[in-house]
């Protein structure tokens, strides 16, 4: 399964490394390690900061287009300066802290939220040679950091001393407990098959092509596809995006945990939401979509980080598209979806992955049997559990007087 290394590493592929070496070359040897780490941090902050800025713009533009309107288009060419205008506005706005609020926690919550959502980005291999920290337990580290974000949301809700914020805090905790489990369980099969918690190993495990154009990405196997979909559903919930934006819940709780935030702190919450979204999408790309691997052998000349970015942006577009379409779930429905639907399905998927791994040697007609069994294990429970989940909820027919 392990792909053979591509014959030539083009200069484009190595370009980031060349730049890094050029910069560190000016520094004394003893400071090199520090410079390399700092560079990685700076690059991640800059790249994702910019991505955040333009993601907000893209989201507003795409939402606008979906809603038959242009979206922001006044600031600069096509509204391209809009994120900076928003940034300036956020920074210069008055920072209101309610008198009754716990000032320290009220301040710490957005800081912690941004910090935690940034931490996860350290273990994502953005390209063949682009990885800030190659941890042995990278996946575990990522989810540990991600889980803390909901706690920061709880902190914000609690510290604001506002009833709506408090309700949002309660919702955030319930959501955290419900969705951490399916999120992690949908990752377990990948870890199991790759035999490693290291993100680089997982990406390497998805290298190579059948016939040169069918990649060995996990998403193209029955268990991988199911795992990917469930991971993305859980990721939507984990990043508090519609239809799972219950803590924020504009129409119900005004702005939920953000009700008492203004100015730059408010902007930080937004930043954290987009960082979280980017982090989880990047993890989904790494785990299921082959990371930086090119989809076909002949497309390998395009550098790996371009492929990664393309996949990442596709997933982010999906996030935006879903947000534009779906209404919000209710709290009990959200937890029911997690416990009665996603958790059983992820557990079954684990078994399915195990079967897939054990039946790797089946060939000839048995190959088709293998696919049939794996697909049944995915589709059957989905239909059964789906029916149970939507019991009592169905389109109705109406009579006329």
């Amino acid at each position: 399964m392990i792909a053979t290394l591509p014959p030539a590493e083009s200069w484009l592929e190595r370009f980031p490394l060349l730049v890094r070496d050029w910069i560190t070359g000016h520094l004394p040897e003893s400071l090199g390690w520090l410079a390399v780490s700092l560079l990685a941090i700076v690059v991640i902050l800059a790249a994702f900061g910019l991505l955040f800025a333009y993601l907000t713009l893209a989201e507003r533009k795409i939402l606008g287009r979906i809603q038959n309107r242009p979206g922001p288009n006044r600031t600069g060419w096509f509204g391209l300066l809009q994120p900076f205008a928003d940034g300036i506005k956020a920074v210069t706005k008055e920072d209101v802290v309610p008198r009754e609020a716990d000032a320290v926690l009220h301040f710490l919550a957005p800081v912690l939220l941004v910090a935690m959502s940034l931490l996860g980005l350290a273990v994502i291999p953005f390209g063949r040679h682009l990885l800030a920290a190659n941890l042995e337990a990278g996946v575990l580290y990522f989810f540990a950091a991600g889980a803390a974000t909901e706690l920061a949301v709880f902190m914000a809700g609690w510290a604001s001393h506002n009833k709506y914020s408090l309700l949002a805090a309660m919702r955030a905790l319930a959501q955290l407990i419900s969705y951490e489990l399916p999120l992690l369980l949908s990752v377990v099969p990948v870890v199991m098959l790759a035999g490693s918690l290291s993100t680089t190993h997982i990406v390497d495990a998805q290298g190579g092509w059948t016939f040169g154009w069918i990649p060995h990405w996990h998403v193209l196997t029955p268990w991988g596809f199911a795992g990917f979909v469930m991971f993305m559903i859980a990721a939507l919930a984990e990043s508090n995006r519609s239809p799972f934006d219950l803590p924020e819940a504009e129409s119900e709780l005004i702005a939920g945990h953000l009700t008492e935030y203004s100015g730059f702190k408010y902007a930080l919450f937004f930043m954290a939401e987009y960082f979280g979204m980017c982090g989880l999408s990047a993890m989904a790309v790494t785990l299921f979509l082959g990371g930086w691997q090119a989809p076909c052998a002949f497309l390998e000349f395009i550098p790996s980080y371009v492929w990664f970015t393309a996949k990442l942006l596709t997933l982010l577009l999906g996030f935006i598209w879903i947000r534009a379409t779906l209404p919000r779930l209710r709290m009990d429905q959200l937890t029911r979806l997690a416990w009665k639907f996603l958790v059983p399905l992820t557990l079954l998927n684990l078994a399915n992955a195990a079967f897939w791994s054990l039946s790797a040697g089946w060939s000839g007609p048995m190959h088709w049997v293998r696919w049939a069994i794996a697909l049944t294990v995915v589709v059957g429970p989905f239909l059964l559990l789906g029916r149970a989940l939507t019991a009592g909820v169905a389109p109705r027919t109406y009579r006329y007087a």
Partner: protein
Amino acid sequence: MLGSGILQGLAVTAKNFLGSYHDPARYTTVEYPEVKQQLPEAFRNFPFLVTENATDPMGTLRCVACQICEKECPPQCIFIEKSKDKKPDANGKLQIYPVVFAIDTSVCMSCQICVEVCPFDAIKMDQVYEIATTDRFDALLLNREQLAKPNEYFHQIHPTEAAEVDARLAADRKAAEEKAKAAAAAKAALPAKPAPAPVAKPAVVPPPTAPQSPGPAA
């Protein structure tokens, strides 16, 4: 199947997203300050006073200060003071005229009732809508100089209605002239005192100046 409705919805939004790039029906925004929507002829916003002659607006107001509109105005935003003297109107007939004719546009709700009840076709609905000012008291209280607009402007904004009004007024005028002629003939039959000299009608009205929106009070 669970999720089919969601997928259907996603298809609808995707259709609208793509449609916004090629289908004008799916991209309906008019970018206002640059592009202005064509106002329908019937559009109404705030009344104005019709004058016959653009060069002498105060002298040729159709309004005779009968105060019907002041009485009928539901939010009571019209304020009229009658003149003590009489001035000849466009037809040469001596009429009372409004010394003060003020409309508080911060109160006016553009309901058009003043226009409907006016027996003299003297007040009509305008089409101005960019009337923001920095002073919400004086600048929104329009006096008769600001309200007076020539008949040509009325023709520009409501051509159909203006043509109807002109035809009606012309008919009225003709009838009045014929009546006057008949009366004069009757009088001529009697060798009595001479009839009062008719006041000269204003000459052909010059082309209108560009319609002014009521700006802040000078």
